[in-house]
């Protein structure tokens, strides 16, 4: 197969793919792929949450939050009265990392931060959103 042909065929595939994902139902293959991607990040988050943060004092998130309980991700953003402002979940996670865990805060788009939040939300799936609630 020459190069031009292969480029055209890739282009055609891309076009048909993007056409499908924009207007028609997602394919089973798409859904599986995206779910696999998400679950692999959830799994990484579970590992980070259970001692994967490399903070010196060795305290881990799950010691106070088994199965990511008592975090109430559905209430964020909310007025975090202890911080005196409306905060997103990631800010509260960083508070925990800096205080009980005595570690360094993560950037809000750090892959570990994304993974921790994916795990927390996944364990809380099905609960109604209640932003701002206390």
């Amino acid at each position, binding site marked *: 197969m020459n190069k031009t042909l292969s480029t055209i065929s890739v282009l055609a595939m891309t076009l048909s793919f993007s056409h499908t994902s924009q207007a028609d139902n997602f394919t089973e293959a798409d859904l599986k792929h995206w779910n696999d991607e998400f679950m692999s990040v959830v799994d990484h988050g579970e590992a980070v949450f259970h001692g994967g943060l490399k903070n010196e*004092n*060795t305290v881990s998130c799950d010691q106070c939050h*088994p*199965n990511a309980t*008592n975090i109430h991700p559905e209430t964020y953003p909310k007025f975090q009265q202890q911080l005196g402002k409306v905060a997103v979940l990631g800010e509260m996670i960083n508070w925990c990392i800096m205080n*009980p865990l005595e570690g360094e805060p993560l950037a809000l788009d750090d892959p570990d931060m994304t993974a921790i939040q994916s795990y927390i939300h996944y364990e*809380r799936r099905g609960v109604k959103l209640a932003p701002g609630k206390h």
Partner: protein
Amino acid sequence: MNKPFSRRDFLKRTAVVAAGALPLTNIEIAFGKNNPKNFNFAYISDSHITQIKGNKFVRNWDRGLIRAVAETNLLDPKPDFVFYGGDIAQLGKPAEIDHGLEILSGLNAKTHYVMGEHDYYVDLGDYWQKQLGADHYSFDHKGVHFVVLNSILTYEKWMHQKWDKGMDRMKQMARLDNPHGQPFMVGEAQRKWLQDDLSKISKDTPLVVFSHSPLQKIYKGWNFWTDDAEQVQALLKPFDKATVIYGHVHQIQYNQIGNISFNSAMATAWPWPYPKSYVQKDSYMPKLTVEMNRADPFFERDATGWQFINMHTGNVDLNYVLPDNTNRIVAFDSKAGHPADKDFQYKQTVAQDHY
């Protein structure tokens, strides 16, 4: 006199602690100081002392135990003895057990110990037993029969499988929400021992049993559970008054099953959430339990604590001393025939109504 105090009282109380006169007096007025049946003991549990490296330990967990020891020493009247409910250490390392015992050596009363899973699974209790003796035993005190069980055993096959290191086994058990966790059990040998021990005791003797895990089934996923709970309960059934006091759950729980009262204790280290807050699985929290609020992490000792226990009725009145929270009293209600929270049980209010 058991006056509940709020966070706002914290500074005031700190000053009181410093003055050495924490107002933790018991109900001796009603029963008389010299009534031999009126005695109290203290109960401290779940300190999870964690070694970071060398002589460095996690400060937060150290502080919880140090505070409980200091406050226990201020009890008036003095407790007849202290119980330690298990999980001294986080990973069962000799350095952690020793450091915990060093802090506990500050207690000015005799201390009895219960084995927790965090003390046990690195070496199957070897070091703990070397320091503290047997993991199950009984004794009599002022007409009450006390029994201690090791309730955190699991399947022999699992415990004795080939592990590279004992620490691998410990890490499996130290993770509360481990999906591959093993269920706790007292086991046949100890049940047989208990049966023999109790056969010598007249059934009108008040009986108090200590275990690390609840000898009732609440939530298996976190081992708020003992697999052979019903078989142990059957051995306690012939007694007029039986009470089980347990640690492990790091939260207030209480229940009544037939003649058996169940009371849990707080941790000095950190609180666990109630299992119902894990929405993916069902759990069986006793309906009787008026739950406490979830902790505010910005107050380091919030929802941690220790307890003192009065035995004047042969049942237990359990006083939760909760730094950073309002104290709670869960006392046996002899009319109702079960433990009841002194402030919240019969009111249409919850202990704290936000989550």
